[in-house]
């Protein structure tokens, strides 16, 4: 009895402690996203729900690459269904019971049958997931798929990817330790096929040893799940949660659309007609044109950055990257997230208040001018992203800042701007000659 209470207490403290740490991580992600500018992505809720169902839940865009999509689907379905077993782990943990659901449904054959079926399904999916995980490691480390081995993946991002895959294998291993020793201890009473087969290897082991190993698997699986939960906020794996809000808040406009800056509209209207009726500026602060740092991007850009799981489909399709330019759309997203993390660290060290650190997202080890200059705005990256991220939206805002705040522009572009202002064409032709094509 006392032992049960101690065990339950340990469980509650362990789960509570881990959940608190995980919560703090998620809170930081939320606070970081809220550092961004306001932007409205709430119109057409029906279309938004549909997009989320199709793209996040239904993985529509993943299926452009059918093999990768099938492998990913296995892990995804397995992850969702395995959470069923977690319900029982929680009940057993809190009340000190053992296989509560199985025993509670002793006299309800249908529910017990369902339970056994669910665990068997989890076991089958777990084996498949284990195989897929190895396939993913093979693809990454031995096949060396180019998109996993770009310069921006060196160091932590590569480590992050491996931690995730090994954690998945750890979780699955513990499920089978737990279930197989349990099957051996219960002489096969539960009727789990795969762990039942493994259980044959434990025949002849004494009862208490079987129970100890079962507990190791049980705690191991729990630790794995909670470890994942705590790790998510610091990892590219966060996409498993953020893919849903990020697709809900998708850009519903045609991909070719780039917003008209209202602060510029105001100025231009006044320039063309000093008596023009214009809407007053949103704030008294002098308007800043374009984005230099994360604070100038919208919250949606920042949500995009946290949703990115660094799969590199964007970069693989980017014409600039393909032809050896420095630009990699994935790196745009990674740099944005890294800068948010840096900002949060500095804010935490300063009681939550932001003091300008003299750095920003352009250069400073983040996104270089050369990268920004290489973009053709072709939307290949946007089209490719399986979770509707737009690297282009960030690139455009940073470009605006380079040109309009810093007058940092290649000479040829300066010439083009001058021609546009003087003759209404990017080349040095007179507007009077606009109809000359007729004469040929």
């Amino acid at each position, binding site marked *: 009895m006392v032992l049960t209470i101690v065990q339950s207490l340990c469980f509650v403290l362990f789960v509570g402690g881990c959940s608190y740490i995980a919560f703090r991580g998620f809170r930081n992600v939320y606070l970081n996203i809220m550092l961004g500018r306001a932007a409205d992505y709430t119109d057409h809720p029906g279309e938004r729900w549909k997009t989320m169902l199709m793209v996040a839940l239904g993985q529509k865009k993943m299926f452009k690459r059918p093999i990768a999509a099938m492998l990913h689907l296995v892990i995804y379905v397995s992850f969702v269904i395995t959470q069923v077993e977690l319900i029982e782990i929680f009940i057993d943990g809190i009340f000190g019971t053992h296989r509560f659901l199985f025993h509670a449904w002793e006299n309800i054959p249908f529910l017990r049958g369902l339970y056994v079926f669910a665990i068997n399904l989890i076991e089958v999916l777990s084996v498949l997931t284990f195989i897929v995980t190895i396939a993913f490691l093979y693809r990454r480390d031995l096949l060396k798929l180019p998109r996993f081995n770009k310069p921006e993946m060196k160091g932590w991002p590569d480590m992050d990817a491996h931690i995730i895959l090994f954690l998945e294998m750890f979780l699955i291993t513990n499920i089978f330790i737990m279930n197989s020793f349990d099957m051996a201890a219960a002489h096969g009473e539960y009727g789990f096929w795969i762990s039942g087969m493994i259980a044959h290897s434990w025949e002849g082991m004494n009862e208490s040893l079987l129970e100890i190993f079962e507990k190791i698997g049980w705690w191991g699986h729990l630790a794995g799940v909670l470890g994942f939960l705590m790790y998510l906020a610091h990892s590219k794996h966060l996409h498993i949660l953020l893919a849903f809000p990020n697709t809900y808040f998708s850009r519903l406009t045609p991909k070719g659309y780039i917003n008209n800056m209202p602060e*510029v509209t105001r100025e231009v209207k006044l320039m063309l007609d000093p008596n023009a009726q214009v809407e007053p500026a949103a704030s008294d602060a002098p308007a800043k044109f374009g984005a230099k740092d994360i604070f100038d991007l919208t919250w949606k850009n920042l949500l995009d950055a946290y949703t990115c799981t660094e799969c590199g489909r964007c970069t693989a399709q980017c014409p600039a990257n393909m032809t050896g330019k420095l630009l990699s759309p994935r790196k745009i997203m990674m740099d944005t997230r890294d800068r948010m993390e840096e900002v949060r660290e500095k804010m935490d060290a300063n009681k939550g208040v932001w003091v300008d650190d003299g750095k920003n997202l352009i250069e400073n080890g983040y996104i270089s001018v050369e990268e920004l200059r290489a973009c053709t705005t072709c939307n290949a990256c946007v089209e490719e992203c399986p979770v509707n991220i737009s690297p282009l939206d960030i690139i455009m805002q940073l470009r605006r800042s380079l040109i309009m705040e810093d007058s940092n522009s290649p000479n040829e572009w300066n010439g083009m701007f001058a021609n546009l*202002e003087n003759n209404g064409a990017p080349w040095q032709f007179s507007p009077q000659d606009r109809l000359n094509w007729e004469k040929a």
Partner: protein
Amino acid sequence: MDIKVPTMAEMAANGQKPDVLFWVGCSGSFDQRAQRITRAFVKILDHLKIKYAVLGTEESCTGDPAKRAGNEFVYQMLAMQNIEVMNNYGVQEIVTTCPHCFNILKNEYPALGGKYRVRHHAQFLQELIDQGKIKLTDANSFKGKRITYHDSCYLGRANEIYEAPRKVLELLDAELVEMKSCKTKGLCCGAGGAQMFKEEEHGKLRINEARTLEALDVQPDIVAAACPFCNTMLTDGVKGKDMQVSVKVFDIAELIAQGQGLDGF
């Protein structure tokens, strides 16, 4: 050219209004190669007796290259001037041979007060074909020819127009072959985002070279484009590979005009 192109100003002076404004764009107005596309399209319009007009000297750049380079000021100044001109003429329908003009007129002008029904000439020609108005007199000239269509980013991904230009080409009764990267995966020609107006950043290959290699891979007689900038990039690419004698780069309007037996453009 044996056609007098009507301008909005002349029409207005005669108390007339065209059914559609043909927005020529800077490339179509000034670039010698693109002027041929403009003339071919005008030939088609004239041949089909479509009541159209151009702005002529009153047209300015839409502001696309400025905007995509990051210069929102220059873009909005040009946009507002263009909108004022068009609204004064009561323009409602626009057709343009440039996907960049098409995209910005259709998607970005409305919020600045320029609300028009905008079509790209691929859509416009497809509608005419669907209505049975375009009949080819010289379709045999394309028999047995291999044509590959290059998707312009601003027509394709930007506005999801993939089928219209292909439907137009189907009329030619030639053999249509797709490149390795096509439709949603279409590879950029390298001109967009104001890259046309500056040197490419340092890299291993030029983007138009990469795209030209994909085009040459399918051994076409003709590379069809629907954008004057793509046309320039691919023409340069083909020349760079010394293939300009056996592989021609044409706009879909030029091909239709040829098929109609029109000449002098």
